[in-house]
């Protein structure tokens, strides 16, 4: 420490190349790698029309990384004092762990509360608009619609600037003048595009239909048919089982020196119990000489067991399969409501009442047949179902309203990507600057004199770096008239005159879009090569069947 205080300067002074600086440089570098990888993945999520689970998953990673980022800010303070006091490394590690856990938890919860607060405080009108804007966002991702005065090609939407724009689009568009009227006219088109995007398009749908059809045929041939045959074999054995059970019962009576006809009525209850012990559930009024009643009970037992076995087996093989009776031929099986329902559900066609055919026209005509007879009807049904909910009166989106869940979920979907993106960018820049300072200190032996000053300067520098991108036009998206309109409306924050908060938000939104253009390739490279392609819980290819419209 005595070296460090020599030649003190207000801002910079000589600083030791202490071991903790090396450690911080390494840890910050590692953190930056993860944060950069996360940032690139976040853009992939936003640009890939995520479902609620994907949004929740990436949000969790984002909050955790933000917590770690804030915790890392305090590490030098702990490490410096540990070095000065000669604290044992294990104790220091424990302290760092506890500190990180504590601060990380606080930040994690704070960020969660921030999003929850946005959702909780949102009005019914805002939720209604958010619901429809997220639908429009999805339609844009699916290339089902384009924005007038801001036409984006599919290629552009797959670029970093396009993805970033998509991430912030619902937030930008929220302040559009008479947005609800504009959206209302286009809603069927938007929802159709959204439904198409959910199903992946007619070609994807056709391939999924073929796969599902193959699976259903396999279930019929290798599941239903053998189970049905086993059931029938079991029924065929009823006569044998009746004979066997009756013989067993008779021999028991003969050992007692009687037969069913001569058994005194006083002994009938005992005889009934013995028969029931044999597994033949005769009734309380059964007469021991009643062979027909005995046979009925045996048949009932065998039939009951066979039916239970058959239905349980079918229930395991097919959702709702317990309702399918045995003995159906192929045509009857595939047209059975339970089969159709399970098949439709597997394909995400639950809302459509289409009958899925197992027999198809020749291969050359099959895709067209599928589109005409199935796909178009499914999309139409989905749009109808979506319209019913997305076009509900805005009051229905208030707490306690029929569309409360949808409204809250979509408000969350609107808020999470920009918030996560903002924290990610700021966190990355702050630690990038911190890393630079550590490296500078290691190279030149100079660093900030006071930690507090450093704590103020580093965020300012980070915002400064970000601000420089505001005027570096790395994309033409921000030059489009519609984007400028969004900026003007956004700066108003719902008022009549621009407000500084709105201006600041719009300023940094533009900066982020510009910054992602050069940053994304670097970040994506970090994710792919340094992190081994870690997916942060988002696996767009893992969804085999298209989702139904969200409930």
């Amino acid at each position, binding site marked *: 420490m005595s070296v460090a205080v020599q030649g003190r300067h207000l801002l910079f002074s000589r600083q030791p190349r202490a071991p903790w600086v090396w450690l911080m440089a390494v840890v910050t570098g590692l953190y930056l790698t993860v944060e950069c990888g996360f940032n690139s993945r976040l853009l992939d999520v936003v640009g890939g029309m995520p479902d609620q689970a994907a949004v929740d998953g990436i949000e969790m990673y984002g909050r955790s990384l933000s917590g770690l980022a804030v915790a890392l800010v305090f590490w030098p303070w702990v490490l410096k004092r540990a070095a000065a006091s000669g604290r044992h490394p294990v104790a220091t590690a424990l302290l760092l762990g506890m500190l990180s856990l504590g601060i990380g938890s606080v930040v994690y919860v704070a960020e969660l509360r921030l999003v929850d607060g946005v959702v909780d405080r949102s009005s019914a009108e805002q939720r209604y608009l958010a619901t429809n804007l997220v639908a429009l966002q999805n339609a844009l991702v699916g290339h089902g619609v384009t924005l007038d005065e801001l036409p984006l090609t599919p290629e552009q939407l797959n670029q970093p600037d396009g993805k970033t724009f998509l991430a912030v689009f619902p937030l930008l568009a929220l302040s559009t003048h008479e947005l609800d009227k504009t959206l209302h006219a286009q809603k069927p088109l938007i929802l159709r595009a959204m439904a198409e995007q959910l199903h992946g398009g007619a070609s994807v749908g056709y391939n999924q239909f073929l796969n599902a059809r193959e699976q259903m045929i396999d279930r019929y041939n290798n599941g239903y048919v053998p189970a049905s045959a086993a059931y029938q074999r079991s029924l065929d054995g009823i006569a044998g089982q009746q004979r066997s059970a009756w013989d067993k019962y008779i021999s028991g009576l003969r050992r007692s*020196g*009687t037969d069913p*006809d*001569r*058994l*005194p*009525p*006083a*002994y*009938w*209850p005992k005889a009934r119990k013995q028969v029931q012990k044999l597994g033949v559930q005769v009734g309380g009024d059964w007469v021991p*000489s009643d062979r027909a009643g005995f046979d009925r009970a045996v048949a009932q037992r065998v039939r009951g067991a066979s039916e239970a076995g058959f239905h349980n087996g079918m229930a395991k093989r097919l959702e709702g399969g317990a309702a399918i009776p045995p003995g159906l031929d192929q045509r009857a099986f595939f047209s059975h409501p339970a089969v159709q329902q399970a098949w439709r559900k597997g394909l995400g066609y639950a809302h459509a009442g289409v009958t899925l055919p197992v027999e198809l026209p020749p291969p050359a005509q099959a895709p067209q047949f599928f589109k005409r007879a199935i796909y178009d009807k499914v999309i139409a049904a989905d749009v109808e179902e979506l319209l019913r909910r997305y076009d509900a009166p805005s009051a229905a989106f208030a707490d306690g309203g029929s569309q409360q869940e949808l409204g809250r979920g979509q408000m969350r979907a609107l808020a999470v990507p920009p918030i996560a993106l903002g924290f990610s960018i700021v966190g990355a820049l702050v630690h990038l600057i911190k890393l630079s300072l550590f490296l500078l200190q290691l190279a030149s032996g100079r660093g900030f004199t006071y930690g507090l000053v450093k704590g103020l300067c580093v965020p300012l520098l980070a915002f400064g770096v970000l601000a420089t991108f505001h005027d570096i036009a790395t994309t033409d998206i921000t030059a489009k008239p519609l984007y400028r309109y969004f900026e003007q409306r956004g700066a108003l924050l719902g008022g009549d005159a621009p407000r500084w908060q709105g201006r600041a938000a719009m300023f940094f939104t533009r900066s982020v879009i510009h910054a992602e253009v050069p940053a994304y390739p670097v970040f994506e490279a970090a994710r792919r090569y340094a992190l081994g392609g870690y997916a942060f819980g988002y696996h767009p290819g893992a969804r085999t069947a298209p989702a139904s419209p969200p409930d």
Partner: protein
Amino acid sequence: MKTLHIAALLLAGAPAAAATMPQADNFHELESAGYVAMDHINTPLLYPLNSGKPYNAKVLLLNGRQSLPPELQQAARDLNDNNEFRLHATLQGFAPFLAGRMDALRHAQGYLVALNAKLGEYDFTRHRFPLALSLQVSKPKSADSYQCSGAYDEFRRTKLTACVSASNWNHQNPAFQYLAIDDLQRAEDIKRRLLNNKAGFFFVMQPEGRFRVVDNDKMKFGGFLDPSLVSGIQPARVLGLLLVDFDSGEILLSGAMADAAP
């Protein structure tokens, strides 16, 4: 047939009841008219008749020997023969008799059911005997009693039989609690005959309702020395009471059940 003044307390309904009570001077006349005496043969046969189950003719005949007509009493001695061939032949000889009994039961107009009777001391003021009647088997802790006798089969050294129950009478019923006879000489004569077992009381009963199979062991009587188990009960309505001379079959007295209206 003399009119028996029984249960003077309840004669209000007698005119209607009298219409259902068969008119006869002799017990055998009633039998000829389709009234079956529920003796040691006929009573147990109620079970095989109503259930369609087989019965053990040897057991039935051995236990109902006293109810056999005199011409068959001799043949019944051969029922204990150890030679199964001779036994078979003996039983074959009884087959027409038993078939006839079954047929008579199947088409019975009513039953003639013997009663246990206790005649009290004659009341010279009211000119009547106190009378306590009961059926052969009393149900424990109950005023009900049953006519149960003979055996249609045996199982584990227990006789199996059937019973007739009275649906409209038990010993607490006010009917038939007194036997009113004005003529002192006749009253004395009847008492003497009863004490010497030369006469006995019978209910004239009419089947009422379905034969009820008793599928529990609660209807057991006879104690551990000679246990009997009831397999079924035929409910029957008491139409009236007869006092019958055992030697001649003459009906000495007759009275209708007060509430025996159809």
